[in-house]
């Protein structure tokens, strides 16, 4: 039995400029929670480390203020927030509300 599951991590609303690509298919450990995904994003996907605070808190335990997290297009506030267990095939989306020009 595989210890990892495939998920898609999507960034939009400006958050895509902080990472490698807008949508990325990755493998994460099975039974990971959203909180584990945040750490995965910090360690593996973020490229603009100087502006990581626009996406995640200092210890990557939460998203930065103004960043919305969705799992399969559902607000995680309606699920178990950071304790939501991620399942194979899920799409986790980070939507930022950056300011415009």
């Amino acid at each position, binding site marked *: 039995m595989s210890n990892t599951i495939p998920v898609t991590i999507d960034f939009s609303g*400006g958050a895509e400029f902080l990472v490698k690509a807008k949508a990325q298919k990755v493998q994460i450990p099975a039974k990971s929670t959203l909180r584990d995904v945040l750490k995965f994003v910090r360690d593996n996907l973020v490229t603009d480390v100087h502006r990581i605070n626009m996406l995640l808190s200092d210890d990557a335990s939460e998203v930065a203020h103004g960043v*919305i997290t969705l799992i399969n297009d559902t*607000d995680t506030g309606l699920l178990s927030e950071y304790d939501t267990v991620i399942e194979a095939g899920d799409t986790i989306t980070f939507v930022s*509300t950056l300011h*415009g020009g």
Partner: protein
Amino acid sequence: MLHSNGQKQIQISAQQEKIYKDADARETLIVYDGTPSGAFLLSQIDDALKQITYKRLMVKPTVLVMVSVTDPMEIQLVLDRVKEIKSVFLESVNWITAHIACCMYTESKVFLEDVCNGAELIPEYNDVISSCSIPTYQKELERVLKEKCLQMIANSLSISKCMVPDDADDLGRLAIDQLCLGRGGSLSALVTVLDKRDDFMLIRPLCDVSKKEISIYNHLCGIDEHCIPIAQTKIETKSVQSLTDSFIRTLENEKFYSTINTVLSTASKIHNTNSSKEGSRCLLCFVETADTLCKTCLAIQRACTGDKIGRFVR
């Protein structure tokens, strides 16, 4: 559902307030500032104009792209992105790009397409802003000059109505800021749908929609591709505005999500019973006052070195 709610919100705003009762004055400036809220407003207007029968929004829009960045490279980036966005939304209407520094114009101007109008005045504009030594008043001066810029452009184009993409989060913070700055008596006009100022009218159709609702809608409908993301300007750490922001953030982090709604619904009921009978207004911020400048603008003027504010009040 969010989609129809957004459109309904704009329709209701227009109908309840009887903004468009005069059939001859349907020209409206639609402000697009590159934010998710700006892109949302454009998409809603675009959709509403495509509707048939009674659902159609009867306005004649002119899109004003409001630029606030000062770096020439970033301005060019905005112009390039606007060309792309124009091909998606409201392609058949006039688009004008103007820098916030247009507030420095002293008389009506002819605005050209495909260039950033007013960019030549950026040094002069920066000079005025930097002349203000108190961070709170500096931020407030930026806000006031932005509104002055909108009014200046609207007057130049002979348009009396201007729709801005201010959402509930922006206006909730603004309400608290204005209370702290001593404009409590004018709160209602500053944060509700309609703000009538003599021959100019500011319309805020998104005043009941939160940033979160807008961002989720934009993501689900692919509108977030039509934003122009520029890193948020850093708010001075020691200002009323930054304190307000951290106050709201703390409450939201503690799950008090309805703070903004409560602030806005209370603010909308606050009217100045002692406003001047002649309807005279502050020459800088346009709130009702019996004097040439309101008390807050007088304080801003005193905080500025030299006579930088004088040009706006003559």
